[in-house]
């Protein structure tokens, strides 16, 4: 047993680290580290830098321009980027639809879409959830009817993250309403500029515009935008889920947030002493830090198992549950640390070009919004209750 990376892996880590240090623009990492709002360009600048380095698609095969890294290398890359304050890579293109196109797409789809994903020319979003289809995704109702060389799409998707920036959306649509519900679902790629596609913002409780409703009204989609076979969309969606796992535990980002928490707690005072020296608060920090240490090892154990050829299955659900619990606890503690200065709500204060004066410490401004925003993490990507169902079914056999 050996809990350390191999010399090759350490060398790889150093390579990633020095790249991130030298190329990640300071004004972008500052926004991430200080919880400032990121704009479309912040993501794109970083993704284009990665693309130039050939690192945009860690998990794609080399023939499609991927880095073809091992699971451990991907993990190291995720950790290094997150710890340094790089924006997350918007996953919908490179981590989600990309692998589906590689596995099931037509030659034309591969040739057309994959390079545009790599270069970030297309910003993708995900059209899965619907008002009546959340955890029970197979009950989705958005219809696609074949008419000649087109599908005509009608219906509504919701919770569509960053659809306001998107050029393309991949959708699960119903192409048949007879038989098993899963068998009537197809996987369709839709250009967001097609007439009839409408994006309406959903403002979340933190006051931010991150998610959207996407409406389809008689939207004509060329049949060549169907991925694989009609009626096989559910299978592709399940395949996609298996590829979504990279970085699901969020260990690197949580380490970064833990450092920020300690910093804030060292600046804040209680009874004239730094809050971090207050036994009660210190203990709360220590317990989440210990949980994170355990999660990091659990994550590495699963990566090692994957390297030995045991495909990760429902274990990933355990990482998601623990990882999101820890992320939420960290946002809670940061908000609690600033006490009353969590209350002032000045959303411009964590945006670009704010010239106003802060109320209280600058770091306090976004903490409450961040706490409220992070309630989402135990809901999205399959709620933590759905994850428990998956573990109960697939690991425990219940």
């Amino acid at each position, binding site marked *: *047993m*050996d*809990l*350390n*990376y*191999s010399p090759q*892996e350490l060398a790889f880590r150093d390579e990633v680290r020095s790249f991130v240090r030298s190329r990640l623009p300071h004004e972008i*990492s*500052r926004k991430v*580290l*200080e919880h400032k709002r990121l704009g479309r360009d912040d993501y794109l600048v970083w993704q284009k830098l990665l693309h130039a380095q050939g690192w945009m698609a860690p998990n794609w095969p080399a023939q499609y321009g991927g880095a073809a890294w091992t699971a*451990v290398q991907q993990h190291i890359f995720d950790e290094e980027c997150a710890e340094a*304050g790089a924006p997350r890579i918007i996953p919908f293109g490179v981590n989600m639809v990309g692998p589906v196109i590689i596995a099931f797409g037509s030659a034309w789809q591969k040739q057309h879409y994959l390079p545009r994903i790599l270069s970030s020319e297309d910003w993708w979003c995900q059209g899965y959830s619907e008002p009546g289809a959340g955890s029970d995704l197979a009950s989705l109702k958005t219809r696609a009817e074949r008419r000649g060389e087109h599908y005509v799409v009608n219906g509504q998707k919701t919770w569509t993250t960053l659809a306001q920036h998107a050029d393309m959306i991949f959708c699960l649509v119903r192409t048949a309403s007879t038989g098993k519900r899963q068998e009537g679902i197809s996987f369709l790629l839709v250009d967001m500029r097609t007439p009839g596609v409408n994006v309406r913002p959903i403002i979340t409780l933190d006051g931010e515009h991150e998610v959207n409703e996407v409406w389809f009204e008689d939207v004509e989609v060329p049949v060549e935008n169907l991925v694989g076979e009609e009626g096989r969309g559910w299978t592709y969606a399940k395949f996609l889920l298996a590829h979504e796992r990279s970085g699901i535990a969020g260990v690197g980002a949580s380490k970064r947030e833990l*450092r*920020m928490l*300690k*910093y804030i*707690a*060292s*600046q804040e005072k209680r009874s004239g002493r730094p809050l*971090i020296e207050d036994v009660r608060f*210190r*203990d709360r920090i*220590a*317990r989440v*830090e*210990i*949980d994170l*240490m*355990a*999660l990091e*090892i*659990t994550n*590495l*154990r699963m*990566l*090692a*198992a994957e390297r030995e050829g045991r495909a990760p299955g429902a274990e990933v659900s*355990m990482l998601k*549950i*623990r990882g999101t619990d820890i992320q939420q606890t960290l946002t809670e503690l940061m908000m609690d640390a600033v006490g009353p200065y969590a209350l*002032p709500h000045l959303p411009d204060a964590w945006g670009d070009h704010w010239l106003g*004066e*802060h*109320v*209280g*410490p*600058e*770091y306090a401004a976004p903490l409450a919004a961040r706490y409220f925003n992070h309630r989402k993490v135990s809901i999205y990507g399959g709620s933590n*209750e759905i994850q*428990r*169902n998956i*573990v*109960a079914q697939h*690991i*425990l*056999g*219940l």
Partner: protein
Amino acid sequence: MDFNYSEEQVLLRESIGKFLQKNYSFEQRRAIIQGREGMNAAVWDGFASMGLHGIPVPEEFGGFGGSGLDVMLVMEAFGRALVVEPYLSSTIMAGYTIALGGSDAQRSILLPRIADGSMKFAFGHGEPGTRYELNQVATTARQENGMWVINGAKSVMMHGGLADLLIVSARTSGEVDSPGGISLFFVNPAESGVTGREYPTYDGMRAAEVGFDNVTISPESIIGVLDDGYALLEAVTDRGIAAVCAEAVGCMDALKDATLDYLKTRQQFGMPIGKFQALQHRLVDMLIQTEQARSMAMLAAVKVDAPDTTERRRCLAAAKELVGRAGRFVGQQAIQLHGGMGMTDELAVGHYVKRLAAIETMFGDGDLQVDRFTSSQVEVAETPLRKPARKWKNLV
């Protein structure tokens, strides 16, 4: 990165598993607990013939100088079988005390007897009025006519009643709570002035309250350097922590398996109760906690051998805190999911839960471990933030 046991270790684990399956069923264990000794000599010798007592003992003294991982695999198996023999007190705690701190003479005489199991030891540190603090020692040892004279009392000394030799911490200088001035001694329990009262503990083991009234022992009885026993005490305690973390994982695995089995077989409302989501989710959380605990037991097993004591202390404290917390959760859920049956003495469930409860406090509960953890922080809070300006301004 490799989270597997070596081939040799896998073989050892298999032979321990077979041995315990044959000699340590739940009923056999019950008979041992109800017996006069509270342990089974044949089982103890069986451990010796598998080489288990030789793990902390270097090869030159008849052992095989094993690592923290060897201890882990043994203790995990012992946790599954709920072994009550004094392996932790004697082989691990005393074995490492002597191996790490003993003089050449002590090592050459005593280590072979640890390795073959022919002598049993108990480790006495805690005292009435203290909890788990390593620096709190009121028992004194003073020099008189070239001999050591011990006075004081040790509380809840695990397996104190069946030890051939006790290892006792005593104050040789300094204030009652000073880490400096603590020394470790061998004390023969048959020595005049040693009083003892043995009693059972709730987890099926035995412990003793041991008093020392002007107990006079030879100058060779001291272990390690005079006044400088604290580091050894802490190193050995960390060995104990790593061991019980692994044992707890064995207990949790057993509880998880038993509970899963129960959920699949117990019928209510015309179906197995495992069909109910409320119960499924509890069991999933047991599984998650067990895996987190396993990760930390691995960390403990690896770091207990680390040369950097700050790193060792930090990781061992973290492991003990998390394993204790996980053990309490898993134990409570296991009883709840077994319903009324979980409350019975007849089922093994309650016995695992009791062992986990004992482990949770042993060598310091979660609060104490958090103290150790935070006091051994190495990293300084760093941030690229500018120094925050505190500006007061009325909102318009």
